[in-house]
């Protein structure tokens, strides 16, 4: 197996008496989609938050691109190439889709402390941003304020932003949520292609998508990884069926 892009070791996090993350070790290797599934409240989003740096773990190590990142902030991790989407879309609502993406481009290019050149006339910003929007299928909506986008379009925009960051790994928290069948199909094939650029840690409740996409699946229950394996292994794991999949799948 190739060298892991992202490696998490023995991560722990409690909220009071509640152990939201308990000795979690997971890794993400180039080219893969690693799905993280588990019941509601299992601690998936909490884990994503810790990896992204918006929540501080109680103990454990996070390594990204071979470097420990536990001590550095969210912004710096993002600049290193850790792209993420939020479970609930998180955008700059007054900015157009384009300007939302341009913000990521600007960050990737280095400094935000440039005071005089107008961004909208800066091809170095606009062009890569348009490209990312196009790849995410939002080119037509580039000038629409994020607040006026429909639910599905906002999810696409989150992806576009992560693309524009030139991310070396993606953390996607329920990107399919709220998408209709059509949107899910498009997004599934899009993610399928995206993994070649950078591996994806995918949190998702849409099992059709997970089974279609995942190279590996880890199952999180009550903060602990109870199983990791291929689609087939997980599908047939009786423990997983009981705790998560239930009768249907």
């Amino acid at each position: 197996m190739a060298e892991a892009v992202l490696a998490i070791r023995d991560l722990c996090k409690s909220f009071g008496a509640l152990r939201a993350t308990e000795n979690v070790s997971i890794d993400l290797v180039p080219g893969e989609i690693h799905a993280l599934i588990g019941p509601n409240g299992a601690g998936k989003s909490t884990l994503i938050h810790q990896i992204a740096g918006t929540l501080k773990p109680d103990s454990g190590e996070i390594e990204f691109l071979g470097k420990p990142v536990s001590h550095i902030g969210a912004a710096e991790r993002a600049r290193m190439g850790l792209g993420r989407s939020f479970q609930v879309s998180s955008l700059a609502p007054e900015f157009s889709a384009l300007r939302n993406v341009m913000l990521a481009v600007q960050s990737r290019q280095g400094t935000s402390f440039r005071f005089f050149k107008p961004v909208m006339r800066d091809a170095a910003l606009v062009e890569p941003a348009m490209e990312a929007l196009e790849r995410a299928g939002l080119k037509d909506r580039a000038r629409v304020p994020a607040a006026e986008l429909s639910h599905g379009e906002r999810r696409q925009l989150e992806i576009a932003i992560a693309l524009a960051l030139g991310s070396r790994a993606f953390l996607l928290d329920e990107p399919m949520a709220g998408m209709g069948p059509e949107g899910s199909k498009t997004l599934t094939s899009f993610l399928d292609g995206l993994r070649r650029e950078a591996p994806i840690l995918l949190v998702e409740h849409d099992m059709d998508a997970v089974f279609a996409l995942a190279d590996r699946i880890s199952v999180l229950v009550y903060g602990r990884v109870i199983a990791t394996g291929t689609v087939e292994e997980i599908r047939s794991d009786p423990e997983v069926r009981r705790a998560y999949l239930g009768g249907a799948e």
Partner: protein
Amino acid sequence: MKLLEIAGLETFYGASQALFGVDLDVAEGEVVALMGRNGMGKTTTIRSILAMTPARAGKVRLGGREIQAMRPHRIARLGIGLVPEGRRCFPNLTVAENLLAAARSGRWNLAEINRLFPRLEERRDQMARTLSGGEQQMLAIGRALMTNPRLLILDEATEGLAPVIRNDIWAVIRVLKAEGQSILIVDKTLSELLPSADRCVVLEKGATVWSGRPGELTPSLQDRYLGV
């Protein structure tokens, strides 16, 4: 007897029109599925029923009474319970307080909801904002049931739920249906929705384009209207 009747609903967001003539009705004890692709106006229809975004034209009747000129809380009190898109639990209230804040007496009470969603019982004194996504969804359903509505409206009530829970919720919906609860439901999971519904109404570009029994919604129609 029709519980809810909607005719020719037209609704605007500011200057932009979102609904161009929605017709829909729900009979007493009936489960009606409101369907359509992303952005076709399902949520807007629901908002207009409750006058959260009042319609500019058209009529809404609840139990024979015209309600489109009323304020939302009056309409809600006439017997509509809403599970809104995006959950919208009250973040600074505990689980129990969320359930109690708008409760009205009837079949559903705290004990019943706890039986339905044991997870909520475990979390009863936790602030809603610290709940996981799925927990919040359960809370939103419980909160709507606590108002003991004549008509329950569910907008994407199973979004973001684990399959087991989703199954539970569908089971709950079927129980409610069996008890004769009238329900208007929006959901993406057709495999569950179609068997549960008595009737389907399909919206496209803000207007009703098809309605009929679930069995009549053929794969070709599904492809045309829902993109399946």
